[in-house]
């Protein structure tokens, strides 16, 4: 592992670490031959499942008559709460997510029963015959009504340091504000799906499109009332996940498993897009209030933040998500005297869940808004206010949760990017443009990102792998991580190829299955390659050590004279093919299979005091975006974005660049066009791509310059000194929102801070433009 500062050594093999290697399935993706779960051949007697859901946001079920559903043509079985042999719960830990509502329903779309029939058409037709009667109970559907009703999923949490109260009272300048940040649907292109096959002894095999096979396995067993070893869960690839396939898939896997075990027939459940969007959780929407004190140069002296989020009907992962919002309330800025309070509201809407960034984006955008507000108030360039508040050396490097920031490169990234993107010159030109343009106004902003890497629930930071070498030298690789498009399988294969010094084509990438690697964590928190890369490396090293021991003995040479290079093994002055050595080792009865294991060092966290070191390290990035808005309609477009992002010593720069661009555009969608609208009755009104608008190709900025920071290197001993990449670049899109704020501010000649909520839809922008034109009280 390179540990110097001169840049990585690149091996001669094909697919070495630190090189661009295309996604292992790219040629299959384009040919339509990459197999997703719905592409598997359907057994003749397979059952198709369709879910019956609650029509009410909050109600007592007074009667449920499914007789006609059962009697409908083609129906094999109908399952509801009373048919569960084990536990009626598919929650990740809190025990409050019934598989089927039992007595009370708590959101529109909550599963109440499932029909299994010979065809999907028969199942759909039968579902309509259910007769469910409700007694309506009062419902709470948003943050405001939950706040009034004091409806929480857990106690409000507090984090902070110093004395914000005193510093605010003493502050030279003081501002306060409030704004809202919308939620987001994952809109993975492949909807939720599971396919279960009954096996001997009442066991079951489940294909599940999941980021968390171990949890699906555990929960299916829990529902069936069987030990975990009765269930095998497998996934080769997902058609996108983004956090939406972390906790939700268990529900559908359990329904299939239940139907399969009950009927002895294979069972498949593939959600229609609308049902998927109605039944499964999304990114939390937030309300954010701040009170900030600062000096004439924009140094923040004291800050009080209140965050409130809509968690939906159950706990799900909301505690950790809201914790992560608090962990990122500082972003890259040292806040000596800060109080953060986080309210987690229970509502009668779908239970919100993990989504790329996991609360971090909602926490981080708040401080960026605060800084824009300060800059407008002081008439400063927001970049200068940002620079003034960055983390620094001793005395300016402790986060609100007590962790020392030792690797901050945000300042260098901002400086380098501002230069390469001509930020200051363009800011001037934009102001000149705005002075002469009546209808269209432009805006520009540069924002940094600091994002903590590790699961903040410490025990989740572990991973396992399984590596076999066959006698012919070909390698079979398996690990607990899942492939959802992010290129994890490619990166881990590179790590193994690098260790054995063989071309990556000799490493067979295989489907994730709980039968090979047990007790895995979700592929989430950007940790996939950090954890699984290390576990696979551990397995490969074990086998390599055995090969070296064998070669040393067999060829009678010291171990330190044996080296692996470019598909060959050098044994003193001899060299043999890697495959020759493995053949000899096999004949000499050397084990060529090993598991591997990794646990992240250094991390610890006390959730009672909210102090500790929850992260091994931080990732950094910066973005400049330029936008144009139409002040008559509120329409807006991003016309240029420049990004400088660091992924340490990238394992695969091409894949990392793809993650960065994709995450940025997804973040841009969250902050601009993607709007979740709920009706007063608690129903989701935007449950299909016809009404819920993720970015299309033409929304991508026409000019887009994305670069990896070539000086990047993880100061922690991560896999080949690389850094995680999945989530951090999502928050680069904050620059888009701040640029829209800048454009709206131009309407009042940059004297006032716009009241703009996210997403910045045309309507939101027009309302902000009209609002800022109105006279305000001082």
């Amino acid at each position: 592992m390179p540990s110097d500062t001169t840049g990585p050594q690149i091996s001669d093999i094909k697919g070495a670490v630190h090189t661009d290697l295309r996604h292992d399935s790219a040629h299959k993706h384009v040919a339509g031959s990459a197999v997703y779960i719905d592409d598997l051949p359907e057994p003749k007697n397979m059952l198709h499942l369709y879910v019956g859901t609650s029509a009410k946001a909050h109600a007592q079920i007074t009667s449920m008559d499914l007789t006609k559903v059962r009697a409908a043509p083609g129906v094999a079985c109908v399952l509801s709460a009373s048919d569960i042999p084990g536990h009626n719960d598919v929650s990740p830990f809190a025990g409050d997510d019934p598989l089927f509502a039992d007595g009370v329903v708590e959101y529109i779309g909550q599963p109440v029963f499932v029909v299994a029939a010979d065809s999907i058409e028969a199942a759909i037709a039968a579902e309509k015959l259910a007769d469910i009667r409700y007694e309506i109970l009062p419902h709470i559907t948003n943050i405001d009504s939950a706040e009034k009703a004091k409806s929480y999923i857990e106690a409000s949490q507090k984090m902070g340091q110093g004395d914000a109260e005193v510093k605010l009272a003493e502050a030279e300048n003081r501002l306060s504000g409030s704004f809202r940040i919308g939620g987001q649907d994952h809109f993975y292109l492949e909807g939720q799906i599971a396919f279960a096959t009954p096996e001997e002894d009442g066991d079951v095999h489940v294909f599940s499109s999941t980021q968390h096979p171990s949890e699906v396995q555990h929960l299916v067993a829990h529902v069936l009332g069987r030990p975990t070893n009765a269930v095998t869960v497998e996934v080769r690839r997902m058609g996108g996940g983004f956090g939406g396939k972390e906790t939700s898939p268990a529900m559908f896997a359990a329904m299939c498993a239940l139907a399969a075990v009950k009927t002895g027939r294979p069972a498949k459940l593939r959600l229609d897009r609308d049902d998927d969007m109605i039944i499964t959780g999304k990114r939390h929407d937030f309300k954010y209030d701040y009170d900030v004190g600062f000096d004439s140069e924009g140094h923040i002296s004291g800050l009080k933040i209140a965050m409130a989020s809509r968690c939906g009907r159950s706990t799900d992962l909301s505690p950790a998500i809201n914790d992560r919002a608090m962990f990122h309330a500082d972003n890259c800025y040292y806040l000596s005297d800060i109080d953060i309070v986080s309210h987690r509201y229970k509502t009668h809407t779908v239970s919100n869940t993990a989504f790329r960034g996991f609360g971090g984006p909602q926490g981080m955008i708040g401080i960026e808004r605060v800084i824009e507000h300060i800059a407008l108030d002081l008439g400063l360039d927001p970049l200068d206010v940002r620079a003034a508040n960055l983390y620094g050396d001793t005395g300016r490097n402790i986060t609100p949760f007590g962790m020392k920031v030792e690797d901050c490169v945000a300042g260098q990234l901002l400086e380098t990017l501002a230069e390469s993107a001509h930020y200051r010159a363009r800011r001037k030109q934009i102001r000149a443009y705005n002075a002469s343009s009546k209808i269209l106004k432009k805006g520009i902003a540069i924002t940094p990102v600091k994002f903590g890497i590790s699961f903040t629930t410490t025990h989740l930071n572990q991973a396992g792998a399984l590596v076999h070498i066959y006698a012919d030298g070909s390698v079979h690789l398996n690990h607990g991580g899942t492939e959802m498009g992010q290129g994890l399988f490619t990166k881990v294969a590179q790590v193994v190829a690098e260790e054995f010094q063989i071309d990556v084509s000799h490493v067979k990438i295989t489907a994730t299955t709980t039968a090979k690697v047990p007790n895995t964590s979700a592929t989430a928190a950007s940790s996939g390659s950090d954890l699984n890369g290390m576990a696979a490396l551990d397995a490969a090293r074990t086998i390599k050590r055995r090969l070296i021991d064998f070669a040393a003995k067999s060829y009678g040479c010291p171990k330190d004279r044996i080296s692996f290079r470019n598909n060959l093994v050098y044994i003193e002055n001899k060299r043999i093919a890697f495959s020759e050595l493995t053949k000899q080792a096999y004949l000499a009865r050397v084990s060529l299979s090993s598991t591997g294991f990794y646990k992240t060092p250094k991390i610890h966290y006390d959730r009672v005091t909210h102090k500790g070191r929850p992260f091994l390290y931080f990732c950094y990035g910066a973005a400049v975006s330029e936008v144009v808005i139409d002040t008559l309609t509120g329409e807006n477009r991003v016309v240029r974005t420049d990004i400088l992002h660091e992924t340490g010593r990238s394992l695969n720069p091409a894949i990392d660049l793809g993650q960065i661009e994709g995450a940025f555009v997804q973040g841009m969608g969250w902050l601009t066009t993607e709007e979740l609208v709920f009706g007063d009755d608690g129903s989701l009104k935007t449950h299909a791509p016809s009404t819920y608008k993720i970015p299309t190709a033409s929304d991508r900025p026409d000019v887009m310059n994305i670069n990896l920071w070539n000086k990047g290197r993880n100061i922690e001993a991560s896999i080949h000194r690389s850094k995680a990449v999945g989530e951090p670049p999502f928050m680069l899109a904050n620059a888009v929102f701040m640029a829209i704020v800048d454009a709206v501010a131009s309407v009042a000649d940059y004297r006032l801070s716009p009241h703009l909520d996210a997403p910045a839809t045309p309507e939101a922008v027009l309302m902000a433009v009209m609002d800022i034109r109105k006279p305000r009280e001082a």
Partner: protein
Amino acid sequence: MTNTVQFMLDGALVRATVADPSVTLLTYLRYEMARTGTKEGCAEGDCGACTVVVGELRDGNVHYRAVNACILFLATLDGKELLTVESLKSKDGGLHPVQKALVETHGSQCGFCTPGFVMSLYALYLKGVVSTKAEIEEAIAGNLCRCTGYGPIIDAATKMHEIGADELPDLAAKTNALMNLKRDVTLKIEGRAQISGGRTVYYAPVTIAALTKLYSDNPDAILLAGGTDVGLWVTKMHKTLNTVISVSDVAELKEIKDLGGCVEIGAGVNYSDAMAVLSGLYPDMGGVMRRIGSTQIRNSGTIGGNIANGSPIGDMPPLLITAAAQVVARSIEGVRTLDIEDYFIDYGVQDIKPGEFLEKIIVPKPAEGLMYGAYKLSKRFDQDISAVCASFAVLTHMGVTRRVRIAFGGMAATPKRAAKAEAMMLGKPFNIATIEAAMAAMADDFTPLSDMRASANYRLQVAQNLLMKFYLEQQGEVETRLLNKEPVYAQ
């Protein structure tokens, strides 16, 4: 040939037995033919994961277009050629240049949307020329990708012609094969609806006379044109369509005629073909049409369908109302012509009799000096349904408004003119004071709804603002449109 649909696939004739006439092509491909490369992402024609390319005869030649298989009834494929992602495999089993380009540019991540992009780009590739960025974005506006951010896909589209240029199909052979499949009688398919089990019938007449007779005999039948709306009745609402008459094969309905002072557009002409003509007459109309649906939707959906279904949020009606267009309705009793605005009576109610159907739309060419503007407001620029669609047409003489038409979609239960605002302008000087008065009058013209697309407040405000925008544009204000806006300092 009842219950059998014939189409060409990979050089071979497929004779598909149709049990339910409303079974979609996507369902048939995935679950009957086990061709699973084509994916379902939304089943409503909004994500493009199911994109396939269909070839059909027109003027004696085969023409290819990308369409959404998820809302295309298999029966409508009769007599056509189908290409799916699996069809692109070259003779040696290798990848097509479109596919190679996507691999090289890292254009796939999760890969689920990829086959759809491949087919949209393949349709573009068939044009045989390197496309501009705007053309590429137009070609893939109907394909959603949640992973890549689109950059690598746009790169691939730019590079695909460099990778191989000799992969174009043998058009003569393809045309010949389709000629052999050509029907000259009404296709009739009988089946049973999968959900209700009820008896269903599907007709595809090839002449307007046959259509007129059939519809007269079956006035309760569903008329199926592009199917971009009716398809969803099946895939989303799970409705049983008892009798369907497809108008897609009626030659007369596909005609576009230039009659000097006006053009006549057959009701069965799809948006793509109509756009080519109308954008020449009214550039702003073309600008909005470019943003209706996606390439796939515009290749299927028809102008007639957009009007006939009477939706208050269809984009064509306001654009055509201000152009003073008329529609011609035909029944067994003959034809009648009416102003398009009079066709819309109330929500869900149109001036059309049982057995009567839209035959064509007559669009007058713009009068000398006519000022015409059209605007579409939606959360997203491409492939979004309008919150408000606005169109203005004003003719002045000596600075005084002599003719004015202002029409909106999304502001009322039907596409509707702003009568009070027009009255405020007619005969008055075309100046800012009149415009402001007309904007104020508009508040009495409309009481719009709030829904998931926009609030009532926004709709009214923006309707008023668009009139101001239209006015400012006529006064020479140039910086008024966001499309194609460039950064101040591009490099």
